[in-house]
């Protein structure tokens, strides 16, 4: 969610039980202005909070000209001093996937060691893998963005130069539209190249519908859609990444998402539905 409208957007997602206290909010407002200038961001978003055993990581995301490609994540413990998170690469993702799914400690220099089990002759060559918590954090943030970041349909447009930018004439989904999961899109490079029938293509607009829709997610029912705050705000919660909350006020431009949780994926989802 945009750091410029924190005071109102945090109230709207508070139904999930997490919020920021006044000290953190004010610190964030001050430091995000400085971040924006120093890193030449177009805008700074509060991405969320990952709860650690000793300390919690606050994470902000800076967006550049292209809203999908030009992203940079930063983390902090006090909302004032920010450190850049490395960009997650495929090798990092693979390393982290071998780790267990315990909670974060709250120390970026903490080293996770993966002890290899001696299985066959190959295992002898491989050394025990070492992964710092900073790497794990970077990968987790990347994965959550890939799998659970949400925008309403029409909020972003892709220009003919394939730049993804905010749609200035987005007036919000109507009440009836906000009730349907297929009006919400994954905010990542489209992955599901699903063949659509001509009947379905009729309503699509290539400038708006360049992203994957949530209703195609597997398993079905991995999102919980509700109306909260006196049933005026549409709230989406991911059941795959427990802690991700998205809000959208119908008929206005206001939308955003925040993650507050322990940074572990809910792998038990198939049992729980």
């Amino acid at each position, binding site marked *: 969610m945009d750091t410029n409208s924190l005071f109102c957007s945090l109230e709207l997602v508070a139904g999930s039980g997490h919020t920021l*206290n006044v000290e953190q909010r004010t610190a964030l407002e001050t430091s995000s202005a400085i971040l924006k200038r120093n890193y030449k961001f177009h805008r700074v978003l509060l991405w969320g909070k990952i709860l650690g055993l000793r300390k919690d990581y606050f994470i902000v995301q800076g967006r550049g000209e292209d809203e999908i490609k030009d992203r940079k994540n930063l983390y902090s413990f006090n909302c004032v001093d920010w450190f850049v998170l490395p960009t997650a690469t495929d090798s990092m993702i693979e390393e982290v996937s071998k780790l267990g799914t315990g*909670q974060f400690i709250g120390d970026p220099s903490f080293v996770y060691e993966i002890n290899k089990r001696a299985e066959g002759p190959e295992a002898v060559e491989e050394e025990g893998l070492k992964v710092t918590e900073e790497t794990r954090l970077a990968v987790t943030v990347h994965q959550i963005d890939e799998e659970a970041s949400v925008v309403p349909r029409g909020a972003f447009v892709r220009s003919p130069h394939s730049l993804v930018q905010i749609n*200035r004439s987005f007036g919000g989904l109507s009440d009836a539209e906000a009730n349907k999961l297929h009006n919400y899109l994954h905010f990542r490079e489209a992955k599901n190249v699903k063949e659509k029938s001509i009947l379905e293509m009729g309503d699509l607009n290539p400038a708006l519908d360049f992203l994957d829709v949530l209703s195609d997610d597997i398993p079905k029912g991995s999102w919980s859609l*509700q109306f909260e705050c006196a049933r005026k705000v549409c709230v989406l919660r991911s059941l795959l990444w427990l802690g991700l909350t998205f809000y959208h006020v119908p008929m206005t431009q206001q939308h955003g998402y925040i993650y507050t949780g322990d940074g572990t994926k809910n792998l038990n989802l198939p049992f*729980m539905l």
Partner: protein
Amino acid sequence: MMDLFNESMDSRQQSAAAFKAFMLKKSTKSNLNLYDHLTRLLMKVMDERPHDVVDVIEDMSREIKLTVFEDKQSTLRDLPQTTAAEQLAEQQRLLFAWLEDVGQEEELVETPFPNVSEIGFYLEQAGVGLGREEMQRIYLALKQLVESHGLPRCRLWGKILGTESSYIIAEADYREDEQVEEEEQSTDEAAEQEESEAKEAEENETKEKDLPPQSIYKPPPAVPKEAIGVGTNKFVYYVCNEPGLPWVKLPSVNPAQITAARQIRKFFTGRLDNPIVSYPPFPGNEAIYLRAQIARISAGTQVSPQGFYQTGEEEGDEEETPHDNCEVNPDFEGLPVAEMADSLSIWAHHIQHILQQGRCTWVNLATKPEDTNEEEDDDEKEEGPDESEPEIGPPLLTPLSQDAEIFNTPPWSTKLSSTLTSQHAIAVVRSNLWPGAYAYAVGKKCENIYIGWGLKCTGKGYDPPLPPQPQKEYPSGPEITESVDPSVEDEEAMKEVLEEQQAAQEDAEETDEEEEENDD
């Protein structure tokens, strides 16, 4: 010169007029023309003066076209459609009804419902909360609950998120007359159960003998339910989906439900009558599952600083017997916040631990008088010695530092709410086993809240229990097992053994004969 100029002017005017005529040509489809449309568009731009007009001009043009089609004077009658928000607003309006009975409130020494706005203020410092407006609505809803049900004491337990809607949960003490009612009900239920069992047994006897073999599985004896006001049923819980909607009372919980809830992992849906489809099967619908989870969460996460509660004072030196009850210590002075945020040994559980059996106090099942047949008695005698070892949970007010570590994660995290102004900060404890459970303490105040999905942390992953072994179709014995065919070597070896035996026998016979002969 002038002629030429006039001529060119004429031709220009002519071409302009021709172009205007072209623009004025009405579209056969929409009956609009470009000239009027552009005029309207420019008028809109002049009126509104948006910045960077050129970027949004297409959308403005589209908007103008849309306004043409807006049907303003319809002959159809307006059909009123009530939205969900309006319905809710109707019901929530009752929360704001103000009654003039000031005199009564002054008489009350202690208000039965908590100061939710104060709790919300402290929770927000801890980074937890439901939003200020929502908290205010819950505050009013709790007031309504207390007044309509005449509850002696009530507190906000928390909120459990569901996939379709959430539950707001209030915890209350039982009224005295309610206790009696509930007990009567439970005895009625038990009597009914016995009756139905007896009926079934009769039916079985009366049926013909050609039935397929009956299952010989006998369920283990059910653990008796705890009485109202004791252990897991110490409090009564009321839930509602949204503040303002009617509060629903949850049924009391029995140990079998708690044991089953421990084995499954399901999301709540937000509908109390929703059946729980799971393996192992859960006895009951979502209301019962919700009640069981509430009991588990309360037992695991309700904590307070040492000294905030004290055990009920009893005579005698029976220190070994665990206390069942604790009450608020009126002389509690408050502990320094920095100390509370630093060590877990200052915090203590004030709700009893639930044993493996599903109860807070252990009950010996083996000695329970039962009217069963002899076979079962035999079984019980065999199992008896194992079962009768009493389970003892940690006593009340055990410090959190003695909680067991599960999945290599410490069960609790503590912190101060503020680093900059630590002089006025509050101490916060967060449960890592039950994500969403928080407690705070500052001065003489202390409160617990749970806001989450109502699920325990599983560490690496949840393994559903395997189904039991299927019953055997027939008892295996030597008559029906196929023996291995002997190989040639085996046969030869056997032959040798037999020959040796024969030789030995013959020898023995010979000696016998000799002896016999000697005897003769």
